[in-house]
C-alpha cells in the first residue's frame, strides 16, 4: 500500500490510465509541496542555527519568532525587477536556474521516505533502479550551475563555472565508487540491489558502521555537491563576488539559493538512506519517515556546522583532495566491503 495506490483507488472509476495519471500528478504535487516546505524550514533553521552559533538571535521580527521571514523574502524576490545581462546567451541563461531546481526536486521524488499511517509509503517513484535514477537527477544540478556561469558572460561567473566544473569532476568519481561499495554490500542480501527501498531494508547493521571510510568519502562529496563552504568554489563570495550566480536577479537567484539548501537537505537524506539505515527505527511501519527526518536533521546540523566553521579550500588543493586522497580511500573502501561481503558474509 502506498500513497500512489491510495490516490489511484480514489479515481479508479476513471479507468486505469486516467486514474494512474491523476494519481501520479497528485503525488508529484504532494512531493513538490513537501520539498518546498522542507526547503523553507531548512533556510529558517539555518538562519536560526547560524545566529545561535554566533551568539545572535536571528530573524525574530517578522511573525512570531521570525517564522514569516522567508515568506517575506520570497515575496520580495517575486517583486524584484528582472535584469538580463545584455550579452547573455538567452536560452541557457533562462534555463539554468530551472535545471538546478528541477534536478533537485526530481531527486526528492525518488527518496523512500517510509510510511505514514493510512496512506502508506510516501515513495513516489517505483522504479527498480532508483539508485541510478537518483544520481542521474542529481547530476543535472551542476549542469545548471555551469550553464549559468557561462551564459552570463561575466568574468567572475565564468571563473566560477570553470571552478564548478573542476570541482564536480574531482569529487564525482569517489562518490560513485563509495556508492558502488554500498550496492555491492546490499547485493549480497537482496535481489534488487539498485533499489533504494531494498537497500534500506537490507541494512540490518547500517552500512555507515560497516564502511566508515565510505561514509566519510560520501560526506565530503555531499558537501562538495551542495557547494557550501569549505567547497563553495563556484560561488566563493569573497573571491568571485557571487560566482556563477553573480548576474542573476530576483526569483532566478532565489532558485539558486534554494538549490543550495535543497542539496544540503537532499544530501543528508541520501546519506541517511545509504549509510544510516534510512527509516529504520521503532514503529518504522507507521512513523518511519520521522526516523528518516531525525537522521537527516542531525546530519543537516552537522553540515551547517561544517559550513560555519571552515574556510574555503583552494581549488587546486581541492583537486588534490579529490584525486589523491578521496579516490584511493574509496578504492580501499570498495575492497574492504568486498572482503566483508564475500569473506564474512555480513
Amino acid at each position, binding site marked *: 500500500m502506498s500513497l500512489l495506490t491510495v490516490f489511484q483507488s480514489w479515481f479508479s472509476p476513471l479507468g486505469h490510465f486516467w486514474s494512474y495519471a491523476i494519481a501520479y500528478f497528485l503525488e508529484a504535487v504532494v512531493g513538490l509541496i513537501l520539498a518546498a516546505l522542507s526547503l523553507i524550514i531548512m533556510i529558517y533553521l539555518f538562519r536560526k542555527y547560524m545566529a545561535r552559533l*554566533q551568539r545572535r538571535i536571528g530573524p525574530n521580527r517578522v511573525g512570531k519568532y521570525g517564522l514569516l521571514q522567508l515568506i517575506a523574502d520570497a515575496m520580495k524576490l517575486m517583486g524584484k525587477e528582472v535584469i538580463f545581462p545584455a550579452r547573455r546567451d538567452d536560452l541557457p541563461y533562462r534555463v539554468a536556474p530551472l535545471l538546478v531546481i528541477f534536478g533537485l526536486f526530481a531527486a526528492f521524488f525518488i527518496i523512500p521516505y517510509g510510511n505514514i499511517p493510512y496512506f502508506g509509503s510516501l515513495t513516489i517513484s517505483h522504479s527498480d533502479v532508483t539508485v541510478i535514477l537518483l544520481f542521474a537527477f542529481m547530476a543535472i544540478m551542476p549542469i545548471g550551475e555551469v550553464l549559468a556561469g557561462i551564459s552570463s558572460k561575466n568574468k567572475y561567473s565564468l571563473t566560477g563555472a570553470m571552478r564548478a566544473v573542476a570541482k564536480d569532476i574531482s569529487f564525482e568519481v569517489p562518490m560513485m565508487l563509495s556508492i558502488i561499495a554500498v550496492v555491492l554490500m546490499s547485493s549480497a542480501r537482496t535481489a534488487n540491489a539498485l533499489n533504494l527501498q531494498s537497500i534500506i531494508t537490507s541494512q540490518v547493521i547500517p552500512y555507515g558502521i560497516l564502511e566508515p571510510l565510505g561514509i566519510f568519502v560520501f560526506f565530503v562529496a555531499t558537501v562538495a555537491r551542495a557547494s557550501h563552504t569549505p567547497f563553495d568554489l563556484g560561488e566563493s563570495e569573497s*573571491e568571485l563576488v557571487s560566482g556563477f550566480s553573480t548576474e542573476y536577479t530576483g526569483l532566478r537567484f532565489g532558485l539558486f539559493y534554494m538549490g543550495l539548501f535543497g542539496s544540503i537537505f537532499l544530501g543528508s537524506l541520501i546519506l541517511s538512506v545509504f549509510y544510516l539505515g534510512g527509516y529504520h527505527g521503532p514503529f518504522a511501519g507507521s512513523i518511519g519517515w520521522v526516523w528518516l527526518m531525525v537522521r537527516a536533521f542531525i546530519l543537516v546540523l552537522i553540515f551547517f556546522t561544517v559550513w560555519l566553521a571552515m574556510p574555503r*579550500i*583552494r*581549488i587546486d588543493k581541492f583537486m588534490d583532495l579529490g584525486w589523491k586522497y578521496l579516490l584511493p580511500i574509496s578504492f580501499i573502501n570498495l575492497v574492504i566491503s568486498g572482503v566483508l561481503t564475500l569473506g564474512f558474509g555480513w
Partner: protein
Amino acid sequence: MDSSGWTELNIGPQHPSTHGVLRLKVKLDGEIIKDVEPVIGYLHRNAEKLCEMSYYCDNLIYFDRLDYVASMIMESGFLEAAEKVLDIEVPERAKWIRVIMSELSRIASHLVWAGAFGLDLGMLTPFFYCFIQREKILNIFTEVCGSRQQTNYMSIGGVYQDLQEETITHIWEFLKQFPEKLEEIYKLFIKNDIFFSRTKDIGYLPKDVAIDYGVTGPMLRASGVPYDVRKDEPYLTYDKVNFDVPVSQKGDVLARFVVRFEEMRQSARIVKQALEKLPDGPYFNPKGKKSLMIRVRGNGEAYSRVESSKGELGTYIVADGSVRPYRVRIRSPTFKNLSVLPVLAKDTMIADLVSISGSIDLVFGEVDR
C-alpha cells in the same frame, strides 16, 4: 612571456575582499595571477590639506579618521609631533592613559582584522566572536570619551576627560576574560587544516624586500625584523612597561596571523601593567586646554613615529608660528605595506590574492588619506 592570452580582471573598487575601495587590475592566466596593479585613491579625502586649513586641535578629527579602526593610536601619533611643535608637556597620568587607550585600540584593530580575514577565507563565524570582544572595548571607549569609534579623546597636552574608577574596573573585567576568549578564536583558526593550507607558505615576503619597500609593523616582524617603534624609540611611557616584540622568521601569511595574535596578547599585558602603574595627578596640561585650544601657536618642525596597529605611523609637522600647521605629512604604514602587494601576489592564484591582501590589513582611510 606572452601576455596575449591573459584575461584582465578588475577586482574592486566594490568587492567583498578588498576591505574598502581598493581596485586591483589583475592579469590572469587561467587562475594564476600574472600581474597585479593596485589602483588606489578611491578614498582620497585630502586630510593633509584640511589639516593645514584647521587649528591644531581640530586636526585630531582628521587623524581619527585615518586608520578608523585604531583611532586612538592615530591621535597619539599626531600629538607626539604636535606637542613637540607646540612646546607643550604632557603630564604623567595622561601619558599612561594614552598608553592604555592605544593598546586597547590596537587590540580592537587586530580583532577587526582577524574577523575580516576569516571572512576573506570564507570562515563566517570567527568574525562574530571577534566583534563581541571588540564591542567590549568600544563600550570602554564610550565610557571614557563618549564616542565609539572616532573617539577624539586625546587632546593637546593631555586627554579630554579623566579615567573614572568605574571605567578602570571595566577594563579589568575585560582583561580578565579576554585572554581566554582570544585563545578560543585563535584555536578556531589555527586548528583548522584548510586554514593552514590557505595561509602556510603563501605570500612569502623576504626580509630585504620588506625593508626595501618600507614595510613596517606586523608584516615586517613576521618577516623576521624585530623593529617596533615602541621598543626602538619609546614614546609615551612604553619604556616603563615590559612586553615582548613578537617576531617570526617565516614571512608568510600564517606568520603574520600568528604575530598579530601574539601582539594582542602583549597589548593586554601592557594594559595590565599600565593600569597598575597609573599614577594620580592632572590629566591635562592647562596650556593646551579649554579656550586656549584655538590659540596655541607652533613653530619649528617635528617628525614623530608611533607604532600603530598596521606599522610605523609617522607624522611630520612643519609649523610657521600661526595657529594652524603649515604642512602636515602622514607616513601611513598601510600605504607602504600595500605597495608590496604586486611582489607578493605574483604567480599565485586568485584565492591566494585574497588571503594575501587580507593579511596586509588594509584600511583605506590611511592608504588614501
